[in-house]
């Protein structure tokens, strides 16, 4: 996994505290409007995101860059590939 400082993030969505619609929904929404090749970060405090987010990115065939833990939340980063 690359260092966070090496990645240029094009858009960051703060989904901390979101139960409905939730961080994954915010990520999918962000991916839909991001230009192809763009890098999206989503901040989530939900432990379920560690499973949900990589699973969806894999299923939707985007590029999962990684999960970067912060104080009390995680920054999930992915690149839109198509």
């Amino acid at each position, binding site marked *: 996994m690359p260092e966070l400082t090496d990645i240029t993030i094009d858009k960051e*969505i*703060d*989904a*901390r*505290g*979101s*139960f*409905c*619609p*939730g*961080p*994954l*929904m*915010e990520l*999918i*929404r962000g991916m*839909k*409007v991001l230009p192809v090749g763009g890098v999206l970060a989503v901040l989530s405090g939900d432990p*379920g995101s560690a499973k*949900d987010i990589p*699973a*969806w990115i894999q*299923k*939707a065939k985007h590029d999962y860059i990684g999960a970067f833990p912060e104080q009390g939340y995680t920054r999930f980063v992915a690149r839109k590939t198509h």
Partner: protein
Amino acid sequence: MPQHILIVGGGVGGTIVANLLARSLHRNEAEITLIDSTGKHAYMPGWLYMPFNHVDAEDDQLIRPERDLLNNHVHLVTGEVQKIDTQNRELHVRHSMGLDEIIGTGGASEAMYPYDYLVLATGARLVASDLPGLDGTEGKWHHFYSAEGSLQLRQALSTFEGGRIVITVGGIPYRCPPAPLEFTFLLDDWLRKSGLRDKTEIRYLYPLPRVFPIESVAEVATPLLEERDVKYTVFFNTEAVDTERKVISSMEGEEFPYDLLVIVPPHRGAKVIEESGMGDEQGWLPTDRATLEVKGQERVYALGDATDLPVSKSGSAAHFEAKVVAHRLIAEIRGEEASNGEATYDGEVMCFLETGQNKATQLVFNYEHPPHPPRPSLYYHMEKQLFNRAYWYIVPQGLV
């Protein structure tokens, strides 16, 4: 000199803000104007039931004049906001001529409204063209996200003789996240009562890895779907609809055929927000999650569906946000310090989820605490039914 407060949007959020301000502020402190494009106030949750009942689109359970819901101190303007100019703190409005407008403007069809404080409660709009296959094919797919849509769906169901019904969402975000699930349960009930259930396959498609965003709610809903023989497919983000072949396909590469498609149309923020360059790519207003101020603007607040907040687009969120906006405005106008608890939105939402068979559950949550839905029961269904009636007398007025 009274401060001019302009509120754009006469939905649940805008109406509550207007009424709370009018009750607290004296006329020499503030002049409050609410601008709404239709002058009518819709109770949108009522549309969910319309495909299965006989309620008329103009029934007063569903729609009432906005004027009847507003405090007398609130000036109502019926017209379309053409432009929001935050540099000069003014709105350009094209009127739909009513008595208020004729008196207020001397008969001009367009007018400029200056403000000291602006509240944007401009809501969401349905944009079918955002999903390939939906634009121009209305009537070949259905939804229950407007009174007209629900009536057309009622009509389609009245001639339905069995087959495959697919229920899904056409874009993210969409208003009232539980609604597709609720519709599925109510449809199952209706098909059973109509003797069509054994001739019908119901398939529910959802974008996430489970049938509802919140895990604790999905745990309640999934066994109910299975119990009622509803097929469900998760990880299905609709990419296109082919109304000729009657097939729906996903970003993840799956396809399902249907005979009747019920799809929540893609949503966007209001056109004027997009055109004023204030919104994000989908026209949602970048909003501070605690203070509800529009980011990068002064004296501008946003609430309800119009915001980009990671909370559900629902009347309930707008309702709780309205109290925060009103509290902060009153404090600002009086030069007082806004007291912390009431002046901060904590992500509070409280809503019901109809699970069919005359049962419902209730979801209460905020930014910090997920919901713990009780077991579906008649009690919550009755409470929801009561709320549907009581809404008109307690919610817009800001009494609860």
